[in-house]
C-alpha cells in the first residue's frame, strides 16, 4: 500500500516538474490565476463551514434540521418525478411511432424556457384550489387532519411545479441516449425474444443510465438553486434560510455558514453522481449505425402515448404560458411604461456583458488547457466551472465576502457595483460556455493546433486564425446560453444588484411578493419569450446527430 502511494506521489511529482519545465508561460500562468480567482468565492464560502458564527448554535438547534428536511424532500420528489416524466416521454419519442411524435419531439423541450419561480407564480393559487377539500376535511374528519393535510400538501404542489419545468433536462439527455443507442443492441434484444417492455427495462434503460443520472443531477442543482418558488409556497429550504438569516436576523456569518452547508451538500451530490455513473461517461457509440426501427404503436397504445406526452407539456408549458398571457393582456397597459423599458435595458445590458465576458474567459481557459496540454490548468478549469452546480445565493454570499475584503484592503467599493454582478454571473455560468467550447475544440481543433504549431504559428495566432473561426457557432451558442441564463437568474441578482437597479427577474419577483401576480406576468412573459430562442436552437442541435 505504502509503495503504491509513493509510486503515485512520484508520478504526480514528475508531472508537476514537467508542467513547470515545459508548460509554464504567460498563458498558463494567467489561466491558472484566473481559474483560481473564479473559484475563490466558492472556496471562501466552504471555508466558513467551520468558522465561528455567533448565532450558529441557535441556528443549528432550531432551524437547520427543518431546512435540511425541506431541501431533501424537494430534491428527492422533484428528481423522481422528473425521471418519470422525462424518461417515459423520451422513450416514446425516440423509440415508438405514433401520430404527433415529431411535434412532441421538439415541443416537450419547451418548459425549459420557464424559470422555476415564474412557474410558481403562474400556479400561485394552486394551494388555494385545495381550500374546499381542506374545509371538508376540517368539518368531517378533524381540524388536526386538516392541519396535517394542509402542511403536507405544500410539498407535492411545489414538487409538481418544479418537476413540470425541470423534467426537460432528463428528457433531453435520455432522448439523445435512446436515439444514439446502438440499434444493434436493441435489435439483438429483439431477436433474442425480448418484447418492447423487457428491451426497455433490460437493455435500453441500463445503457442510458449514465446519461439519465447526469440529467437528474442538473434537475437537483436547479431545485437547490431555486428561491422564488420555495419562497412563494413557503417551503423551508436552505436558500430561504440563507435569506432569512441574513435579512431578518441581520446575521451575515450565520447565513454564510448555512451557505457552506448547502455547498457541502452539493459537493456530496456531485461525488454521488460520479459514483452512480461508475466513472462511465455519457454513453457514446459510433454514429454510423443504421437508423433505428421504431416500434409502431396500435391505436389504443398510440392514444396513451399521446396522453403521456401531452401531460407534461400542458402542465409545464401550455397552461402556465396561457395563464400568464391572459393576465398580461389585462395588465400590459398598467405595467408597460418608461421604467419597464429601463429595466428591460438593464436586463439586456447586464446579460450581454455577462455573455461576452463569460465566452471570452471560457475560450481563453479551455484553449490554454488544450493548446499547452496543461493538466494543472485543466484542473483549475474544473474548479472554476463548479459554479454552475452551486446555487446563486451561495455564490452571492461568496462574492459579498470577497468584496468586503477587497474594500478593507484597497478601499475599492465592489459591493453593489455592476462589475461584481457581472463577475458573479461569469462564475455561475462559466460551465455553460466552457462545455460547448471545450468539446468543440476537442472535436475540431486539436489536430489543427498541433499542425499550426509545427508550422511555427504561436499560440495567439493559432487561437485567432484556427480556433475562433472554427468554433464560431459554438461561441455564439455559448454566449446565447449565458445571456438567457442571466436574464432568468433570480437569487444572485437579488443579492448583488446595484441599488435601484431592477431587472426583468427582480421586477417579477418584487411584484409577485407584493401580491401583484397578475402584474408580474408582463416581465415574466418577456423572460420566457427571450428564453425560448436558445431552447429552440438547443433542440435543433440535439437532433442533428440523429440525421
Amino acid at each position, binding site marked *: 500500500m505504502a509503495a503504491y502511494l509513493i509510486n503515485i506521489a512520484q508520478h504526480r511529482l514528475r508531472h508537476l516538474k514537467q508542467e513547470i519545465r515545459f508548460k509554464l508561460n504567460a498563458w498558463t500562468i494567467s489561466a491558472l490565476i484566473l481559474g483560481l480567482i473564479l473559484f475563490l468565492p466558492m472556496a471562501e464560502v466552504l471555508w466558513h463551514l467551520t468558522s465561528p458564527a455567533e448565532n450558529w448554535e*441557535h441556528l443549528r438547534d*432550531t432551524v437547520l434540521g427543518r431546512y435540511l428536511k425541506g431541501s431533501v424532500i424537494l430534491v428527492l420528489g422533484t428528481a423522481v418525478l422528473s425521471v418519470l416524466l422525462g424518461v417515459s416521454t423520451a422513450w416514446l419519442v425516440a423509440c415508438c411511432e405514433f401520430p404527433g411524435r415529431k411535434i412532441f419531439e421538439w415541443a416537450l423541450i419547451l418548459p425549459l424556457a420557464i424559470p422555476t419561480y415564474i412557474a410558481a407564480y403562474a400556479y400561485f393559487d394552486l394551494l*388555494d384550489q385545495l381550500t374546499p377539500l381542506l374545509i371538508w376535511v*376540517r368539518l368531517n374528519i378533524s381540524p388536526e387532519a386538516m392541519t396535517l393535510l394542509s402542511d403536507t400538501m405544500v410539498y407535492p404542489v411545489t414538487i409538481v411545479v418544479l418537476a413540470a419545468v425541470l423534467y426537460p433536462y432528463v428528457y433531453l439527455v435520455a432522448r439523445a441516449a435512446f436515439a444514439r443507442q446502438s440499434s444493434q443492441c436493441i435489435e439483438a434484444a429483439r431477436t433474442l425474444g425480448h418484447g418492447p417492455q423487457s428491451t426497455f427495462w433490460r437493455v435500453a434503460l441500463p445503457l442510458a443510465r449514465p446519461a439519465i443520472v447526469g440529467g437528474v443531477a442538473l434537475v437537483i442543482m436547479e431545485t437547490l438553486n431555486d428561491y422564488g418558488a420555495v419562497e412563494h*409556497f*413557503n417551503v423551508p429550504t436552505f436558500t430561504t434560510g440563507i435569506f432569512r438569516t441574513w435579512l431578518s436576523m441581520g446575521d451575515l456569518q450565520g447565513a454564510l455558514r448555512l451557505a457552506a452547508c448547502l455547498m457541502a451538500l452539493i459537493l456530496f451530490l456531485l461525488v454521488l453522481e460520479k459514483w452512480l455513473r461508475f466513472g462511465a461517461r455519457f454513453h457514446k457509440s459510433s454514429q454510423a449505425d443504421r437508423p433505428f426501427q421504431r416500434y409502431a404503436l396500435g391505436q389504443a397504445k398510440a392514444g396513451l402515448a399521446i396522453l403521456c406526452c401531452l401531460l407534461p407539456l400542458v402542465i409545464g408549458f401550455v397552461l402556465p404560458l396561457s395563464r400568464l398571457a391572459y393576465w398580461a393582456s389585462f395588465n400590459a397597459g398598467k405595467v408597460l411604461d418608461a421604467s419597464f423599458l429601463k429595466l428591460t435595458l*438593464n436586463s439586456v445590458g447586464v446579460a450581454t456583458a455577462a455573455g461576452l465576458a463569460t465566452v471570452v474567459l471560457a475560450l481563453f481557459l479551455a484553449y490554454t488547457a488544450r493548446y499547452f496540454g496543461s493538466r494543472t490548468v485543466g484542473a483549475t478549469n474544473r474548479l472554476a466551472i463548479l459554479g454552475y452546480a452551486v446555487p446563486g445565493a451561495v455564490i452571492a454570499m461568496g462574492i459579498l465576502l470577497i468584496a468586503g475584503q477587497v474594500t478593507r484592503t484597497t478601499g475599492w467599493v465592489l459591493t453593489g457595483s455592476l*462589475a461584481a454582478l457581472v463577475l458573479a454571473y461569469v462564475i455561475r455560468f462559466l460551465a455553460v460556455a466552457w462545455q460547448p467550447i471545450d468539446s468543440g475544440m476537442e472535436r475540431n481543433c486539436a489536430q489543427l493546433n498541433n499542425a499550426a504549431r509545427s508550422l511555427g504559428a504561436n499560440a495567439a495566432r493559432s487561437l485567432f486564425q484556427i480556433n475562433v473561426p472554427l468554433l464560431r457557432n459554438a461561441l455564439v451558442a455559448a454566449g446565447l446560453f449565458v445571456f438567457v441564463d442571466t436574464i432568468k437568474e433570480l437569487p444572485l441578482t437579488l443579492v448583488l444588484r446595484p*441599488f435601484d437597479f431592477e431587472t426583468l427577474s427582480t421586477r417579477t419577483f418584487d411584484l409577485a411578493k407584493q401580491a401583484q401576480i397578475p402584474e408580474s406576468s408582463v416581465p415574466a412573459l418577456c423572460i420566457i419569450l427571450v428564453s425560448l430562442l436558445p431552447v429552440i436552437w438547443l433542440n435543433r442541435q440535439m437532433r442533428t446527430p440523429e440525421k
Partner: protein
Amino acid sequence: MFLVEPYSFLTARLWHGRCCGTTALVNQNWMLDIVETVSHFGEPLARFVMKSFLKSFFALGLLAGVSVSAAELNVYSHRHYDSDAILFKQFTKETGIKINVVKASADQLIQRLISEGKNSPADALLTVDAGRLHRAKAAGVLQPVKSRALAKKVPAPMRDPEGHWFGMTVRSRVIVYSKDRVKPSDLSTYEALAKPEWKGRVVARSSSNIYNQSLLASIIAANGKDKALAWAKAVRKNMARSPRGSDRDQARAVAAGLADVAIMNTYYLGILANSAVAADREVAAKVGVFFPNQDGRGAHINVSGGGVTASAKNKKEAIRFLEFLTSAKSQEAFGNVNHEYPVIIKNNKSELLKSWGSFKADDVNLSVLGAKNAEAVKLFDLAGWE
C-alpha cells in the same frame, strides 16, 4: 469601467437634479472658507462685515435658487401605497420641491445607505415599521432632527427619543375573527390565543415578517422572554396550517372557513374592503376586527415612519417633508386612501376605521420593539414558528 458607463445616462437625471438643489450651498461654503483664511491674518472687523454680507447674499441666492430651479428631495421608501404617490405630488405642488423616490424593502435600503456612506444621494428614509427604523438608527444612517412641529404632532411613544425617526401613520396588529363562528366575547387578549380552546383555529403569516417580529417584541417587553417563548410555541401549536402567505391571505383563510381567527394588521382589511375584486370585498364582510388587551396594556401598534439620513444634502427640505406628512391634511389622506390610523389615533377621520371602534393602544415606546427585534426572531425559531 465600460460596464458601468452605458448605464450612466439612466441615472444622469437624478444626479443632475441633486446638483441643482445644492449648488448654492456648495459655493457658499467655499466662500466662507476663503473668509476663514482671510481672518487668519487677523482682521476681525473685515471678517464680520464679510460674513454678514455673505450671509445675506446666501439667503438671496437660496431664494433665487428655489424660484429659478426647483429644489429636489431624494427619498428611499419601503412604502408602496397609492396614498404616498398622491401626497408626494401634493408636497411638490405646495413647496416646489421635487421628490425622487426609490422603492425597495427597508432591509435593502438600509444596507444600501450603509454601503453608500457619506456619498448617499438619499435625504430621507421611509419604512413601514419601527423595528427597521431602529435598525437604521443603530446602523448610523439616520441623523437626529430637532423640529418643534414634529415634536408637537408626533406623540412621544411614536418617535425616537433622540429624534432620529418619527412615526407618520399607525397600524394596529389585531385579531380578526369569523363573524359566523366566533363571538367577540370569546376573545380577550393575545395571550388568550395560546389557550388549548383555540387549537386548530388560528392562522398567521411567517415569522420572517417584521410585523410578527414586532408583535412578539412587544410581548417580550410586556411579559418577559420566557413567557413570550411559551406564547409563541402555544400559538404555533394552535395554528390551523403552517404560516404562509400575506396578511390578506390570513383574512381569506378565515373567511373561507379554514380557521376562525387571524392575527393581522388593520389596514389590510381596509384594502380588502375597498378592493376592486368582489371576492375580496366579501372576505372583508365576513370577518370582524377585535382589538385585544383592552383591559391591560392595549392593542399592539406599530408605525410607518421616517427619518432624515445622516448623509442628507437637503436636510431642510427633508425635515419639511416629514412635517408635511404629519400635517392634518396628509394624516387624513393616509386614513382615507390607505386605511392607516393617523399618528394621533384619536384624530382619525376615516369612516371605515371609525366603524371598527376606538381602542386603547399599547403605549410602549416603539424603539423598544426595534431593540428586541433580534431576540424575537430567535424566539420564533425556538418556538418552531417558521
